[in-house]
């Protein structure tokens, strides 16, 4: 064709699909006011966009569209068997958002969802209502960001702030905010409380190359360090550990990076550590392998009761190696292993 192309790269959230039912919801209006350049498209139901067939997840991740919706049905779920409970009996997770602004090649979300676009549920009041029902029965330990990373989008949705306020009037609720972000402004903005645990997922630089759009290891460590200084409850998660050729050296050299950046005093103040090798359900792995040719995902995992992971001897060896290195500054009571779950 002779004509010159007229296209330009799309920004994230270039199109915002909004369920008509929540068009005037205060949270919708707040989010739309922060994305004035986004083209708003009214929709009946988020699944009309999110669940279309044959979507290209990798392509959509390069410039995600945003879908604003109302979550219905169950909003607070019992923790999944593949998740670390940290010894909590009443362990739940919730899905305030579907998909993640980050684009990790090994992420189970790529195998779980049919789309790479981001869904944000705006009806937080319904989540709080259901949570209060649970809290009337027993204390609750709730993971806020298993199916997403909420921190990098906090300025858009304000959900972590909203939960922080909710915690103040519900002392038997503890929440975990897991993140790969370098969320220093957020940590500075929130008064520290033991009820809100910021859990930083850390990987050696050899692994972060598979974690597109995420901050570097150094940036995450700086955020964790500042979080400790500010008095926040900080968890460090080495989960998932990933197999790469030379993994022993990679993970052994990783721990001195931690100690050099954080220092012994800070490491002692870390609430706890989580260690676990990569694992994924059979059905998610099947779809995940269609999205990328990365060796991280194409590894010949073994199937143990429907969950795919590394051969047990390798998984144990990998976790042992890291736990041994961590034991220099953390007692066994502070290290939670996936296998012990």
């Amino acid at each position, binding site marked *: *064709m*002779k*004509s*010159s*192309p*007229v*296209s*330009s*790269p*799309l920004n994230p959230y*270039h*199109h915002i*699909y909004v369920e*008509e039912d929540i068009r005037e919801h205060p949270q919708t209006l707040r989010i739309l006011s922060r994305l004035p350049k986004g*083209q708003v*498209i*009214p*929709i*009946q139901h988020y699944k*009309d*966009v999110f669940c*279309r*067939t*044959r*979507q*290209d997840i*990798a*392509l*959509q991740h390069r*410039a995600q*569209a945003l879908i604003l919706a109302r979550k219905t049905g169950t909003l607070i779920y019992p923790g999944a068997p593949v998740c670390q409970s940290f010894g909590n009996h009443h362990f739940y997770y919730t899905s305030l958002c579907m998909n993640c602004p980050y684009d990790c090649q090994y992420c189970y979300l790529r195998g779980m969802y049919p789309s790479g676009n981001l869904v944000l549920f705006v009806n937080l009041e319904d989540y709080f209502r259901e949570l209060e029902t649970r809290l009337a029965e027993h204390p609750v330990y709730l993971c806020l960001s298993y199916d997403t990373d909420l921190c990098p989008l906090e300025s858009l949705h304000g959900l972590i702030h909203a939960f922080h306020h909710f915690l103040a009037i519900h002392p038997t609720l503890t929440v975990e905010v897991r993140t790969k972000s370098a969320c220093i402004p957020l940590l500075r903005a929130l008064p520290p409380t033991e009820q809100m645990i910021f859990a930083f997922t850390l990987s050696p630089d050899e692994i972060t190359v598979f974690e597109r759009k995420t901050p570097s290891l150094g940036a995450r460590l700086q955020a964790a360090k500042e979080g400790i200084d500010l008095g926040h409850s900080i968890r460090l998660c080495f989960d998932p550990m990933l*197999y790469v*050729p030379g993994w022993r050296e990679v993970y052994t050299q990783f721990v001195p990076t931690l100690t050099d950046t954080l220092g012994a005093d800070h490491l002692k103040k870390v609430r706890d550590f989580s260690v676990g090798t990569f694992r994924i359900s059979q059905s998610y792995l099947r779809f995940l*392998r*269609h*999205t*990328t*040719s*990365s*060796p991280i995902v*194409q*590894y*010949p995992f073994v199937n143990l009761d429907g969950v795919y992971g590394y*051969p047990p001897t*390798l998984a144990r060896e990998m976790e042992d190696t890291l736990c041994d290195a961590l034991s220099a500054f953390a007692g066994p009571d502070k290290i939670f292993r996936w296998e012990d779950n």
Partner: protein
Amino acid sequence: MIYLQLAMSCEAAPLIRALSLSAAQPLHGLKRWASQDVTLTLSGTGPYAACACAALTCAEAESAHDLFVTFGTCASLLPDLSPGTLYRIHALYDLASGRPYYPDMFPDIGLPEAGIITGARVLDTASPLHGLADCPPHTLYDMESAAAHLAASRFLGPHRQAALRLVSDAGESSHITQESIGHMVEKQLPALTAVLASFASYAASLEDVDDFTPSDEEVSHLCSLLRCSESMRLQLVQLIRYAGSCGISFQTLLAPYIASGTLPVRDRKEGKRILEELTRLIST
């Protein structure tokens, strides 16, 4: 390849000239014109013709680099939308079934956007179509687009579809002639050809995920060497994929086994042992 679908020859003629398309073999009786980059098919008017044509066309679009693009004229449901404006469609709504469709909006081509409702009858302001008031707040109306893209979605993902529409009137079609439509399309040719060029470079950038799956012949040959059971075959295929993703040649790995006469194996037990050995070799 861009598979372009239009309903009427008066809409197509200016594009056929501008894109230097030559008459091509009809597609089950549907007229076609083609160049190296573009194949244009005339569907005829109405949702059923559009649906049939889209299905036939998209069944051909096998490469990950193929895009399905529809173009045509439409009516505006808002009186203030001026005729002659070219829109990219971001939402399509089929009036008969109530089903919506949303193409991905890749790449950004800078055109104004609108939603469109597709019905089976010509819009007439004198007798508003039944049910239109209950539709989503879309601004355009035509008789093909939603049907074409709903049919196309059976074959192609939303990232491989795009719809372009040119407003011809506001539901008062009595003064619209084939000639006036031809003139309107002619005026938009610079914009249309630039947009199609953008789609072409976008299509070229679409990636096939190479999952390093070996051919059936290769798998069959290796299975006979290792006397594989079905579960061993699946294990072998995944191992070859992993080796490929790591840049390891599986054939090179096997060469010493073949040279020493270890392969082909005598029995399945031996095959299993070698498969496990190969797995350990490259994955631990």
